[in-house]
C-alpha cells in the first residue's frame, strides 16, 4: 500500500517539478583507477526524475565501473555523488538499496529453485515473529505487479520461467524495495527482439511512475529507441552526450569508437561449393537426460556462412561442443569433407581441417598464464617444426608467434607476454590468428565477437568473410541477431534444442527471425 501511495506522489511531484529541481542523482568528477588502468576519469553525470538515461560505450569503457561506484560495490578514488541534492556516500549495495537505488544485473541474481515471491522477499523479508509473513509479502507483490503492469505468478518457480520473465522478477525485486533509481546493466543481452520490446514498454511505464532508469548498453538501435538522453563513454571518459532526436547510429558509433565505423559488412554474394560439414540427426542429452540438442541436422558448404541464431541457452553451445569434439553426443553423425568423425576427438577434427573459435575464450581458447608464443601453437605444438622428437623448438615457436602477431595485428608488448595480460579483443585476435592461420576447410565460430569493441568486431567479421571468399565453410553461432544477419548467407534458427527453420539471409527479416527464436514457428 505504502509503495503505491509513494509512487503516486512521485508522479505528481515529477510533473510539477521542472528544470534543476527534478535532478535526483548527480555524480561529479568521479575518478576510479585499478592497478594499470584508469576506469573512470573525471566522469560526471546527471539523472533526472522519470527519465531513461542511456550509458553507451564499448566493453571496458567504464560504464559498469561507474554504476558499481554508485551502487556501492566500489569506492571512488575521488569525486562526489549527490542524491536529491544531498552528498551521498555508500559502502555497499545494502546502503544503496536503502537509499532507493536498485540494480538489475546482466546475470540475474535469483535463486533458481525458489518461487518468484521467495526471490522477491529474499533479503527484505516481512516477518511475524520468527516466521515469514508470506501473505503480507504476496499482497504487496501483487499490488506492485498490478500497478506497474508486470504480471508474474508469485508462486511460479524461477527456473521454470523464460528469461524475459526472470528479468521481470529482477525488476520487481527492486520495486519491492521501493527504489526510485533503477540501474539496468545490459538488460537486453539475453532477450529476443519481442522480449526487448516488452521490456521497453515496462521501462516506459516505470518512468511514467517517476522511477529513473540508467540503461547500460552497447546496442545503438535500442538506445535510440528508449533513451531520453544518452551519455557516451570511451576509455573511462565521458566523450559526449546527445538525445535520440539529435543523432543517429553512425553518429553514436563514431563517438563510441572515436572514429568512423562501418556498421554493415561489405560482402559479395556467396559461391557455395561442396559440403564441408554435415551434421545428421544429432542428439545431445544433458545430465538429467533431457534433450539439449534434439534431432539437429545441418550442413555447411564451402564458401558460405551458415549462421545459427537463437536466444542464449537454446542448445547452441551444446551443438557446437558436440561438433567440435568437446562434448559427447548421444546419437547422430558428424561428417567433415565426406569423412565420418569420431566422438570427442578434437585433434582428429583439427587434423581434418576444422578451426574452432570457442564461445568462452578464457576457458577453452587460451591458457591465460602461457605466453602468446605457447598459445599460438596450442593445437599444433606437437608437429614439425614446433616439436621434433618430442622436444619443443623454441625458435620456431617464437617465429610463428611473431609472424601471427604481425599478420593479425595483435597489440602486445611482446610475444612472451602472458595471454591473460591482453585485452579481450587482442585475446580473441590470438585465437583467430591461431585457428585461421592453419590450412582449414571449416571454421566454427561461436560468439566470436562477444564482449569485443567495435573495431575488433569489424575485424573479425571481415576475417570470417575473407575465409568464406577463400572457399572455407563457416558456421557462425551468435545470439546477436545483427551479427547473424550481416555476416551469414543462410540462417538456421534454434529454439529449445531444435533447428526450427533455415532461411536464406537475403529474404530473412528481423521480426520473422525474432518470432522463430521465441518459438512461434
Amino acid at each position, binding site marked *: 500500500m505504502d509503495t503505491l501511495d509513494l509512487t503516486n506522489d512521485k508522479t505528481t511531484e515529477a510533473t510539477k517539478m521542472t528544470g534543476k529541481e527534478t535532478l535526483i542523482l548527480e555524480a561529479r568528477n568521479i575518478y576510479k583507477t585499478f*592497478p594499470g588502468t584508469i576506469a573512470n576519469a573525471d566522469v560526471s553525470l546527471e539523472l533526472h526524475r522519470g527519465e531513461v538515461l542511456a550509458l553507451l560505450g564499448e566493453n571496458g569503457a567504464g560504464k559498469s565501473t561507474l554504476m558499481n561506484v554508485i551502487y556501492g560495490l566500489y569506492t571512488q578514488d575521488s569525486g562526489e555523488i549527490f542524491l536529491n541534492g544531498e552528498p551521498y556516500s555508500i559502502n555497499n549495495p545494502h546502503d544503496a538499496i536503502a537509499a532507493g537505488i536498485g540494480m538489475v544485473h546482466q546475470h540475474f541474481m535469483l535463486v533458481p529453485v525458489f518461487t518468484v515471491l521467495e526471490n522477491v522477499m529474499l533479503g527484505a523479508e516481512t516477518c511475524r515473529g520468527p516466521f515469514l509473513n508470506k501473505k503480507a509479502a504476496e499482497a504487496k507483490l501483487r499490488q506492485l505487479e498490478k500497478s506497474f503492469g508486470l504480471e508474474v505468478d508469485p508462486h511460479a518457480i524461477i527456473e521454470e520461467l523464460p528469461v524475459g520473465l526472470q528479468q521481470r522478477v529482477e525488476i520487481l525485486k527492486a520495486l519491492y524495495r521501493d527504489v526510485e533509481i533503477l540501474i539496468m546493466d545490459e538488460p537486453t543481452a539475453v532477450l529476443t527482439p519481442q522480449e526487448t520490446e516488452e521490456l521497453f514498454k515496462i521501462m516506459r511505464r516505470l518512468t511514467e511512475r517517476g522511477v529513473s532508469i540508467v540503461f547500460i548498453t552497447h546496442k545503438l538501435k535500442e538506445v535510440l529507441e528508449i533513451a531520453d538522453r544518452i551519455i557516451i563513454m570511451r576509455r573511462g571518459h565521458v566523450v559526449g552526450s546527445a538525445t535520440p532526436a539529435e543523432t543517429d547510429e553512425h553518429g553514436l558509433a563514431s563517438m563510441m569508437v572515436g572514429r568512423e565505423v562501418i556498421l554493415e559488412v561489405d560482402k559479395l554474394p556467396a559461391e557455395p561449393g561442396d559440403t564441408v560439414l554435415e551434421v545428421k540427426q544429432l542428439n545431445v542429452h544433458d545430465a538429467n537426460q533431457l534433450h539439449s540438442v534434439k534431432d539437429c541436422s545441418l550442413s555447411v558448404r564451402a564458401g558460405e556462412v551458415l549462421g545459427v541464431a537463437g536466444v542464449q541457452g537454446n542448445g547452441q553451445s551444446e551443438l557446437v561442443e558436440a561438433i*567440435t*569434439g*568437446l562434448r559427447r553426443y548421444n546419437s547422430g553423425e558428424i561428417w567433415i569433407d565426406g569423412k565420418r568423425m569420431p566422438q570427442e*576427438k*578434437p*585433434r*582428429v577434427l*583439427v587434423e581434418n581441417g576444422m578451426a*574452432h573459435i*570457442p564461445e568462452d575464450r578464457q*576457458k*577453452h*581458447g*587460451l*591458457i*591465460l*598464464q*602461457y605466453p602468446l608464443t*605457447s598459445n599460438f601453437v*596450442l*593445437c599444433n*605444438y*606437437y608437429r614439425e617444426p614446433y*616439436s621434433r622428437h*618430442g*622436444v*619443443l623448438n*623454441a625458435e620456431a615457436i617464437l617465429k610463428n608467434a611473431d609472424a601471427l602477431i604481425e599478420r593479425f595485428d595483435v597489440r602486445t608488448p611482446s610475444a612472451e607476454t*602472458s595471454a*591473460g*595480460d591482453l585485452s579481450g579483443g587482442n585475446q580473441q585476435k590470438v585465437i583467430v590468428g591461431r585457428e585461421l592461420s592453419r590450412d582449414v576447410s571449416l571454421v566454427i565460430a561461436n560468439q566470436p565477437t562477444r564482449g569485443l569493441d567495435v573495431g575488433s568486431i569489424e575485424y573479425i567479421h571481415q576475417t570470417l568473410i575473407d575465409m568464406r571468399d577463400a572457399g572455407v565453410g563457416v558456421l557462425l553461432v551468435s545470439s546477436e541477431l545483427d551479427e547473424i544477419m550481416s555476416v551469414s548467407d543462410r540462417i538456421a534458427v534454434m529454439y529449445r534444442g531444435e533447428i526450427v527453420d533455415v532461411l536464406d539471409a537475403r529474404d530473412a527479416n528481423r521480426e520473422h527471425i525474432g518470432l522463430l527464436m521465441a518459438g512461434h514457428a
Partner: protein
Amino acid sequence: MESVTPSQNNWLQKVWFSVRIPFLAIILALIVGAVVLLVSGSNPLEAYAQLFKGAFGSLKNFQRVLEKSTPLIFSGLAVALGFKAGLFNIGAQGQLLLGAIIAGFVGFSIKGLPSYVHIPLALLCGIVAGALYGAIPGLLKAFSGAHEVITTIMLNYIAINLTDYLSDGPWKDMSPGNIVSRLPAIEESAKIGTIGPVPIGFIVAVLIAFLIWFVINRTTFGFEINSVGLNPHASKYAGMRTKVLIIAALIVSGALAGLGGAVETQGVVGRYQPGFNAGIGFDGITVALLARNSPIAVIASSLLLGAMKGGANTMQFYANVPNEIIDIIQGTMLLFVTAEMVVRWVFKMRKRSETEITVTAGWGQR
C-alpha cells in the same frame, strides 16, 4: 659494459621476483622459531649457531646433510611434478615406502649379481613399484573422478600397513637375535656408495632434478603436463588427451617417489626398516611448495630442510633445545609460503603480478 647491465639487472630482478616469497617466508619462520626458543628459555642465537654447526661444521656433518637431502629431492620432485599437472599428490609417502621396500627385497633376496647389475635392478624395481602405486590414483581420477587428495591419503595408509606387514611377516629378517620388524640387510652388491663425502644417490637426485626440469620446460610432454595443470578445458580443446596425461603425471610422480625410497634403502639405511622413511613423502610437499614447483629450486629447498634435519641433533645436544623446534620452523615456513598474503602484508609488498607462478593452480578445481 653499460649496455649489458640493464639486462643483467632484469635477470637478477626476475630471479629475486620468483624467490623472494619463499626466502622471506624462511626468514619469518626463523623469527617465529626464535620467539618460541626465547619463550621456552633458550638462547635462539646459540641454538641457530649450533644448528648451523651441526649441519656444516664438519665434512661428516655435511655428508649427513646431503644424505638427508637426497630423498627429499626425490619426493619434492614427485610432488612438484604433480602440482605442474594440477594434481596434489599427497601419496608420495606411500609411493616412496613401496619403492623402498621393493628395492630392499630385491637387494637382499637376489644374490651373486655384480653391482653394476644389482644396483640398477633394485633401483628399477623401486621405480616400477612407485609408478604402479602412483597409477592407481591416476586411474581412479581419470575414470571415476575420485579426487587424488582423498585417494592418495587412503593409499598412504594401505602402503604403511602393507610394508609393516611384509617386514614383520613374509619378508622379515629372520637372522638370529633379531626381534624388530625389518627386512634383512641388502647385499653389498646392491649398495650405493659415495664419491668422497658426496653420496652417489645425491648426485643421481640432482641429475634427475635437471632431467625433470628439461622434461617440463623443453618437451612436448612437459607442455602437455603444464597445459593440463593450468587449464584442463583448453587442453581438451587443443586435442590433448587429458585423462591419459593425468595418469601419466601420477605415474611419473610415483616413479620419482619410488626411486627416492630405493635410493634411501640402497644408499643410506642398507635395508628396509619401518620408520626409517617416515615423513619424507610429506616433507616433499614442503620442499615443492618452498621451491614453487621449480625442479632446480627443489634441490635448494631440499638442502635447506636437509640441513635443518642434519643439524638438529647437534642443536639438541649443545644448545639443549628440543628437536621438535625444527618441526615448528618447518611448519611455519610452509604456512608462510602457502599463506603468501601474510608475507606480503608483513613486508608491505604489492599484490602478485600475473606473471608469477601460481603454486596452488589446480587445487580442487576438478
